[in-house]
């Protein structure tokens, strides 16, 4: 049995349907019509202890709803959840002792007392032993750079400070599982990196299981060894980030800066190379798009060097952003088994 086990998890919300205009509003007073909106539609997911999972999807895909059900805030309409053997909804208090959560859009700090007081209140609430509390707090203050604002009240903090404090608050009691709902939203790159380092350290040191939703692909690349993509309430991908990249980010663009070139010869050489297209082709600049599973960068480069004098070159790799955007927009569908086969074939091709 996995550490986190989700089976056929479903959540439906009831939404009131109001007809437009005054007449509609009056009508609604007497006859209420509702529609059920399915936010999460039968998800199955297994997560092992110590895994770091990115839970990704477009807005309204059902990410936060899933996280809320995992934390025990929302009751599933159907299906079961078990986190370390605990049903989060039925045993909310027991579950709450072993989890930490950050909802990026909303703070859990006490608004009008200093951050340090919030921490010491959490010590009381989670009954954290003195030694552990002191060790964690000292470490967190250093890792997250919090000494400057520890004495301020939450209302006076900037977004970046608040998020760091929220994160520290969520991890103070060494939770076994941490749920982070957009922990880096709206933050500058320096703070983002601090937060990522912090999460990584916690995962490494305590084997904390991390589940994180984000729109920031840097978060995924830096933190997560597993990627789960959800859209319209259903899982559409579950696998490694590398596999997604191998399958959908196979194209590279290589740019050359040339001193002189024999363009006709180069054009002819290109015709003989499989799946290579010229993005740009003049005497000074040549940009070639190629599939790295069909031809290697060195083959492309040596062909160009035979036909001209290369001063400089660089290779562009498409970001995972690009791939996930395509998935969201429905241009490519990720079928897990299909993807695995393709990737295997692709890897073989690249070996050849």
């Amino acid at each position, binding site marked *: 049995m996995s550490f986190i086990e989700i089976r056929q998890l479903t959540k439906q919300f009831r939404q009131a349907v109001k007809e437009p205009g005054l007449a509609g509003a009056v009508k609604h007073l007497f006859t209420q019509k509702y529609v059920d909106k399915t936010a999460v539609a039968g998800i199955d997911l297994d997560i092992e202890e110590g895994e770091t999972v990115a839970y990704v999807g477009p807005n309204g895909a059902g990410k936060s709803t899933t996280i809320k059900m995992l934390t025990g*805030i929302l009751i599933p309409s159907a299906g079961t959840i078990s986190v370390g053997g605990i049903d989060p909804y039925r045993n909310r208090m027991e579950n709450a002792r072993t989890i930490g959560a950050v909802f990026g859009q909303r703070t859990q700090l006490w608004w*009008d007392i200093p951050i340090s007081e919030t921490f*010491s209140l959490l010590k009381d609430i989670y009954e954290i032993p003195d030694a552990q509390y002191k060790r964690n707090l000292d470490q967190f203050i250093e890792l997250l750079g919090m000494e400057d604002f520890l004495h301020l009240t939450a209302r006076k903090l900037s977004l970046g400070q608040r998020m760091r404090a929220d994160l520290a608050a969520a991890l103070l009691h060494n939770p076994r599982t941490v749920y982070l709902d957009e922990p880096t939203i709206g933050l500058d790159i320096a703070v983002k990196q601090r937060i990522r380092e912090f999460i990584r350290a916690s995962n490494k040191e305590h084997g904390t299981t991390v589940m994180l939703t984000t729109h920031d692909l840097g978060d995924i690349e830096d933190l997560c060894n597993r990627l789960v993509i959800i859209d319209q309430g259903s899982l559409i991908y579950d696998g490694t980030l590398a596999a997604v990249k191998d399958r959908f980010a196979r194209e590279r663009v290589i740019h050359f800066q040339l001193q002189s070139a024999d363009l006709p010869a180069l054009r002819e050489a290109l015709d003989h190379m499989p799946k290579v297209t010229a993005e740009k082709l003049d005497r000074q600049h040549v940009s070639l798009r190629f599939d790295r599973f069909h031809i290697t960068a060195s083959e492309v480069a040596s062909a160009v060097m035979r036909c001209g004098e290369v001063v400089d070159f660089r290779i562009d790799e498409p970001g995972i952003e690009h791939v996930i955007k395509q998935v969201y927009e429905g241009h490519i569908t990720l079928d897990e088994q299909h993807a695995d086969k393709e990737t295997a074939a692709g890897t073989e091709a690249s070996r050849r």
Partner: protein
Amino acid sequence: MNAWLRLPRSWRAYTGIATRSMQNTLAYRLSYVVNFASSFVLLIAMYALWSAIYAGRDELAGMSWTQMKTYLIISFISNSLLSYYSESRISGKILDGSVSADLLKPLDFQKARLAETLGSTVIEGGLTAILTFIVVLSASGILKPDFIHSLLFILSVLASLMVKFGIVYMAGLLCFWSTGSLGIVWARMAVTSLFSGALVPLSFFPDWLEKLALVLPFQGIVHTPAAIYLEEVSAWGALGLLAVQCVWACVLWLCGKLMWSWAVRQITIHGG
């Protein structure tokens, strides 16, 4: 209460909340002063109104003017103990969705809210008590009860706090079904001040209304402490009234517990 006895460790969580709530209240000291001042103005208005009503009369519905003045002050104390701020904090949590942060903690929502309320009551109530004490000392013709009744009065004020918390808590939970709190809070306040005797002593009511008021829990908020303070009942009678208050406090607590477990099922926190 039972859970507290079984798990004495978890006391610390709730006493921690109460202390932080005191700090929070101190952070809002200006708002408290404004609140206090405004209810003090109301006290003066009530005083003026009743002194006009009593002009040329010795007694109304069995109450002398001296008793009436004392009654006004007691009603003022019990009303200031649990401030509007404590009340709006409960409904506010539900309306703005920050109840989700509470659900993430290994805390009982009701106990945590009680701890919070009691914490701010210590600060606010303390201030109120001091200020009122000054009024009592400076004003002439305010009655002072004997020792036993004073002691029972203090106990009944504490019990009245629990009764009021029970009512306020349930009114706050109603916000799970509505999208605004003002209407609920106003309705709660109107019903409470009428049936508790805060507006008019219950003995002024028509007979049937007085009887109704006496079987409702609200009378425990103002009527009971006032009756004890004014020595309208013997010490034994006062103990009986105190017992009724405690029973109501427990009943309301259990109702609140039931209501919470039902309400939390309806929860749909925004954003998905």
